[in-house]
C-alpha cells in the first residue's frame, strides 16, 4: 500500500478529461503543492473518471468528497492556497456533485435515488488504476484468493446463480447459468472472453470501467476461469480505446509479477493468463459469435447458433463470453455473497446498472444506480434536468435501442418492467432529446449507422437497412409515399423476424417505437397523392419494382 497523506487530490484521467489538459493540471498541482510546502500533507493521485463529464478537468478531494470542475492551470496556485492553506472550499470551481460515498447498508433503501454508493464503479475515481497495490488495498484479489482456497468451481457457479446477476452487455442473460453451460463441457482447453468491443453509440461505460479499475475486470475473468475450468482469457477490445488498452496491458503485467495471474495463482495449482486482442472497427463484432470470428482472424460475421459458444466458441473450443461490466460485478458478489447483492435493485434484476446519460441534459455523465429507477429520476435527480427546451424523447440502450416518449418517464428501468411495456433496457446509454429534435432526422441518422454497420451476410439486413434509410430520406423531404409508414413498419418487423443476428433484429426497436409514439409527426412527411408507379418492362430488368 502506498503511503497515504492527510488529504488526496484525485485527478480524473480519462478520454474526456485528457482532451481538456488533465495531465498538465496534474503536473501543475504537484509543482504547486511542493512550492507551498504541502508535499507531506497532500498527495495527488491519478485515477479514472470521477463522474461528471462536460465539465473540463475534474478533480476530487478525498476524504471530504467535494469536486471541482473546469479546472485550468492558472487556477491552481489560488486553489491550493484557499483549499489547503486557508482550509475552505474553493467556491469558484466547486461542483454541486460529490464523490459517491461507500455503500452504507444501514441507511440504504434500494429504491431511493440519492447517491448511495456504487458496486461496479466503487474504485473508479478513488484509486490509481495503474497501481495494483491500491486495488489490493481496497480488498482487491481477496475474492479470488478466497474461492481458490475455500470453494469448488461448482460452488462459485452456485453463488453466481443465487445472486441473480444478468449479463450487462444488453441481452440480460443470467450469468450463473451461462457459466454452468461452459463448465459442463468436457473438452479442453476452454476460454474466457471479455467482450470490450463497446461499439453501441452513446455507450462508453466499459471504457470508463477499464480505464478506472482494470484489475477488477481481470479478477472477474480469473474467477470465471476457475469456475468453468479455463486457463486462458482474452480481452477483445476496440482499436479506438487506446488508454484502456494501455492500462489493461499494465495491469496484466503487474498482476503477473506478483503471482495473481500466470502459473500457480495464490500457490494453488490453478493457472490463468490473460491476453489482449484488438479489434479493427466493426459494430457487429460486439455480437459474441461475430467477435469469435474476428478473434480468429476472419470477417466479423455472426455464426449460426447452436452450437453456442459454451460448446464451440473460440477455435471451436468451449468458451464463455461476458461483458466488461458483468465481469466487474463478479468480485464484489463473491466477496460479499449473493444475498448482499440481491439487496440492490429489483427482485428480477438485482444489482446496479451503469448508465451514460447524454444529449440535452444539464449534467451529462456516468452514473451507477440501482436497477429499477425511472427515467424521470435519472433525468431530474441525477442529470440536473433538461438543459434547454422540454423533454421530447429518450433513446435507451444506444442506437439499437427503443425510443421512449414522455408517457414512459415513470416506468422502472429494469429488464422485466421494460419488457412488460414492450421495450428493452439494452447497453446502458441514455440519450435525452428536447423538442428541437426532429424524429425523422434522428431516425435517419440511426439508419445511416445501420446501413454502414450491416455486415452484409444476410440480404434482409443488407437491403432492408438501406430501404428504411431511403424511406426516412423521403419523409424528410416530405415526398414519402401514401403508405410509407406501413411499409417501414412491415420491413422492420420482417427484419426482426428473419435477420440472422441481433444487429438486423434490433433495428426494429428504434423504428417501431418511434412509429408507435410519434406517428403523427412522422406522417407529416407523407404526400398522400404519391402512389407507387407501375414499373415498365425495361426498368424492371435493373431496378426492383418498389423503391
Amino acid at each position: 500500500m502506498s503511503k497515504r497523506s492527510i488529504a488526496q487530490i484525485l485527478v480524473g484521467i480519462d478520454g474526456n478529461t485528457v482532451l481538456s489538459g488533465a495531465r498538465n493540471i496534474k503536473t501543475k498541482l504537484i509543482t504547486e503543492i511542493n512550492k507551498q510546502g504541502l508535499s507531506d500533507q497532500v498527495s495527488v493521485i491519478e485515477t479514472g473518471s470521477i463522474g461528471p463529464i462536460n465539465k473540463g478537468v475534474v478533480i476530487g478531494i478525498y476524504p471530504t468528497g467535494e469536486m471541482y470542475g473546469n479546472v485550468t492551470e492558472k487556477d491552481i496556485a489560488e486553489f491550493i492556497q484557499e483549499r489547503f492553506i486557508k482550509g475552505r472550499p474553493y467556491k469558484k470551481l466547486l461542483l454541486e456533485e460529490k464523490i459517491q460515498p461507500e455503500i452504507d447498508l444501514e441507511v440504504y433503501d434500494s429504491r431511493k435515488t440519492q447517491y448511495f454508493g456504487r458496486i461496479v464503479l466503487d474504485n473508479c475515481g478513488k484509486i490509481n488504476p495503474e497501481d495494483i497495490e491500491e486495488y489490493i488495498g481496497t480488498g482487491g484479489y481477496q475474492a479470488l484468493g478466497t474461492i481458490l482456497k475455500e470453494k469448488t468451481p461448482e460452488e462459485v457457479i452456485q453463488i453466481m446463480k443465487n445472486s441473480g446477476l444478468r449479463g450487462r452487455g444488453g441481452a440480460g442473460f443470467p450469468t450463473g447459468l451461462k457459466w454452468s453451460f461452459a463448465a459442463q463441457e468436457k473438452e479442453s482447453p476452454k476460454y474466457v472472453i471479455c467482450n470490450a468491443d463497446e461499439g453501441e453509440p452513446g455507450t462508453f461505460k466499459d471504457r470508463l470501467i477499464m480505464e478506472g479499475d482494470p484489475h477488477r475486470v481481470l479478477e472477474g475473468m480469473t474467477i470465471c476461469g476457475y469456475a468453468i475450468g479455463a486457463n486462458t482469457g482474452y480481452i477483445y477490445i476496440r482499436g479506438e480505446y487506446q488508454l484502456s488498452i494501455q492500462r489493461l496491458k499494465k495491469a496484466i503485467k503487474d498482476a503477473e509479477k506478483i503471482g495473481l495471474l500466470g502459473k500457480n495463482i495464490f500457490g494453488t495449482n490453478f493457472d490463468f493468463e490473460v491476453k489482449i486482442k484488438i479489434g479493427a472497427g466493426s459494430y457487429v463484432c460486439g455480437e459474441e459469435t461475430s467477435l469469435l470470428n474476428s478473434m480468429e482472424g476472419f470477417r466479423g460475421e455472426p455464426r449460426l447458433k447452436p452450437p453456442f459458444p459454451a460448446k464451440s466458441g473460440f477455435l471451436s473450443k468451449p468458451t464463455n463470453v461476458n461483458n466488461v461490466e458483468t465481469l466487474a460485478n463478479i468480485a464484489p458478489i463473491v466477496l460479499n455473497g449473493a444475498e448482499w447483492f440481491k439487496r440492490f435493485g429489483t427482485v428480477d434484476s438485482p444489482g446496479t446498472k451503469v448508465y451514460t446519460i447524454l444529449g440535452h441534459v444539464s449534467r451529462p455523465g456516468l452514473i451507477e444506480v440501482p436497477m429499477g429507477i425511472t427515467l424521470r429520476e435519472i433525468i431530474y435527480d441525477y442529470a440536473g434536468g433538461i438543459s434547454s427546451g422540454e423533454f421530447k424523447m429518450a433513446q435507451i440502450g444506444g442506437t439499437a435501442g427503443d425510443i421512449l416518449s414522455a408517457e414512459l418517464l415513470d416506468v422502472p428501468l429494469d429488464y422485466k418492467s421494460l419488457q412488460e411495456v414492450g421495450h428493452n433496457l439494452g447497453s446502458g446509454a441514455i440519450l435525452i432529446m428536447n423538442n428541437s429534435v426532429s424524429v425523422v432526422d434522428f431516425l435517419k441518422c440511426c439508419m445511416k449507422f445501420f446501413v454502414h454497420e450491416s455486415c452484409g451476410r444476410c440480404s434482409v439486413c443488407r437491403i432492408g437497412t438501406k430501404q428504411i434509410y431511403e424511406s426516412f430520406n423521403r419523409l424528410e423531404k416530405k415526398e414519402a409515399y401514401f403508405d410509407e409508414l406501413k411499409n417501414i413498419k412491415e420491413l422492420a418487423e420482417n427484419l426482426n423476424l428473419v435477420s440472422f443476428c441481433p444487429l438486423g433484429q434490433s433495428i426494429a426497436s428504434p423504428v417501431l417505437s418511434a412509429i408507435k409514439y410519434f406517428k403523427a409527426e412522422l406522417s407529416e412527411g407523407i404526400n398522400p397523392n404519391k402512389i407507387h408507379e407501375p414499373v415498365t418492362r425495361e426498368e424492371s430488368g435493373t431496378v426492383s419494382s418498389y423503391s
Partner: protein
Amino acid sequence: MTVKEIINKYGNKRENLLQILHDIQNQSPQNYINQEDINLLSKEMKIPASDIKGTASFYTMYSFVPRGKYIIRVCESPPCHLLGAQTIFKAIETKLDIKEGETTKDGLFTLEGTSCLGICGVAPAMMINEEAYGNLNEEKIGKILDQIQEKESK
C-alpha cells in the same frame, strides 16, 4: 519492420491476421495496406490473397488506397449528430477543400466519417490519427488544423 518481421512477431496463425494488418498499416507512411504486402502475407501465412483482402475490407479501420498522413475521423453517430456533427463536417470540408472520403492534394489530410468513438461526453467529437478532440466548433477546428499544417510546413 518488414512484413516478414511483423509476421514473426505474432506468429503466422490465422488468429493473428488482424493484428498483423494493423501493424502493416500503421507503419505505412500513407496509412494503407498495399497489394504487394497482401501477396507477401498470403505466401507467408498460407491464406489466399483474396481471402485476406476479403477479411480486411470488412473492417473500417483498414484501407487499400493511399491516404493522407493525418486521418480525420469525424463521429457520425446519433449523440454527436444531435450536437452538430454536420457543421463539423462542413467546416472541415470548406477549410481543406475536400469531401468525405477524399485526401487533400498535398497528401496531408484524409476526411472520413466514423461510427461512435466512445467519447460522447464531449460530443461532437473527432479523432485525428490516435489523438481525440471533443467539444468541437468551427473555430476550434480551424485552430487544430492550422496547428498541424504549421507543424508540417516547417
